[in-house]
């Protein structure tokens, strides 16, 4: 593993090859990363930005694209108000620009095809990113165990990857998608409404039956609350894997 670790720790110069808007405040950026060692769904990278005077900023971003060894990887970035790095990525970055990247990092909050167990995924806002990578990886690997996603967004137009998630849910019988909207719901909305609580988790069968693997990702407070609910419902704490993106408030859930 030392070889793989050295490869992941090394800074590489990545080139932006595509940028697309996911929602009004979220963009997906595709990078070509020469020598990319490959990744699992759920892992992240570090980006390093350097100003002319040598000032450096680093941030972590989950990999959005599915597992594999393709040198093209995608990140999905939410523009945090006044965000130093997310602001730059949204406003300044252009196709052809170069940026330093290293990874993949973190083999704990990660899904691999060898562990195709029942899967419960719970996302708040941009916390969907590593979970989407897991779902894409599952689809590509032909995973057979059932997966459920409960995804909390503020309003329907802030749902990231909406059409792809709908397509995945329509295509496979072993993926169940539930959205919940916390601020505004359109008329005729068939999903959930309001913040995720125990009642909603139970209603949507996010129960410990069958000892599923659980992944929770989103703003810190969101993850804290949900992890507590899950343990109170009887999930084994060691089955509940969490990733916290940062302070609440700025991530829109």
């Amino acid at each position, binding site marked *: 593993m030392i070889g793989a670790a050295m490869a992941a720790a090394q800074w590489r110069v990545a080139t932006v090859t595509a940028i697309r808007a996911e929602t009004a405040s979220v963009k997906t950026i595709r990078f070509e990363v020469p020598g990319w060692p490959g990744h699992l769904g759920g892992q992240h990278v570090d980006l390093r*930005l350097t100003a002319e005077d*040598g000032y450096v900023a680093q941030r972590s971003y989950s990999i959005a694209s599915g597992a594999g060894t393709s040198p093209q990887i995608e990140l999905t970035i939410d523009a945090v108000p006044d965000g130093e790095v997310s602001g*730059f990525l949204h406003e*300044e970055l252009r196709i052809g620009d170069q940026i*330093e990247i290293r990874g993949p990092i973190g*083999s704990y909050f990660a899904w691999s095809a060898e562990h195709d167990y029942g899967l419960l995924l719970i996302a708040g806002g941009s916390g969907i990113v590593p979970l989407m990578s897991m779902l894409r990886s599952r689809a590509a690997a032909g995973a057979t165990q059932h997966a459920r996603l409960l995804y909390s967004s503020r309003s329907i137009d802030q749902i990231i990857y909406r059409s792809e998630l709908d397509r995945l849910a329509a295509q496979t019988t072993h993926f169940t998608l539930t959205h919940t909207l916390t601020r505004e719901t359109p008329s005729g909305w068939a999903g959930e409404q309001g913040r995720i609580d125990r009642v909603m988790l139970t209603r949507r069968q996010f129960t410990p039956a069958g000892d599923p693997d659980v992944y929770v990702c989103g703003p810190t407070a969101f993850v*804290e609350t949900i*992890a507590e609910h899950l343990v109170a419902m009887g999930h084994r*704490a060691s089955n509940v894997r969490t990733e*916290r993106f940062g302070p609440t408030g700025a991530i829109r859930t």
Partner: protein
Amino acid sequence: MLVTRGFKGRRREGDADRLRLPPGQFLTPEFPVLTTGPTQHTRLDRWSLALQHGGSLLGKWSWEQFEALPQTEITCDIHCVTKWSKFDTRWRGVTIDNLLRAAGLDAAPTGFLMAHCDGGYTTNLLIGDLIEARAMIATHFDDLPLLPAHGGPARLLVPHLYFWKSAKWVRRLAFRENDTPGFCESHGYHLRGDPWREQRYEGDL
């Protein structure tokens, strides 16, 4: 050094702050929470801290006994591998030196240790990173009992290493003959984790 076209950076810290920040870190006024799983809630009447070497118990303290050990206060900067640093955090607890003394030991029996926590988390440490007032078992933050989300009732505090080494909900310190990876260290993080040398990940020198 690759200059990023168009990147100016908004968060310039003053010179004094910049000197206190390890490479790649930024300052936050908040106290972010990071854990790989749910927060553990341990009742004080069920809490104990054990010191072990191989099969033998070198010392064990209930909460009351632990609180009666000599208390030390420290104010220090802390650095998380996810890039935030926080200056001047104030902690109280029992230094590892005092813990060894309380167990009747003049010195640690080996050069390495594994910290075991509620929830199954582990982290490996060099004894050299723990003694001579470099580390403690902290029970108070800002004069208040440590909240569960921040590792209460008791967490390890090793401020000169990345904060994943300051294991939350610590319950058992086991001396080891070798340095073997703990939890994060076996999931791609550096074996030692010195922020000044930017030892974030396995493979960083």
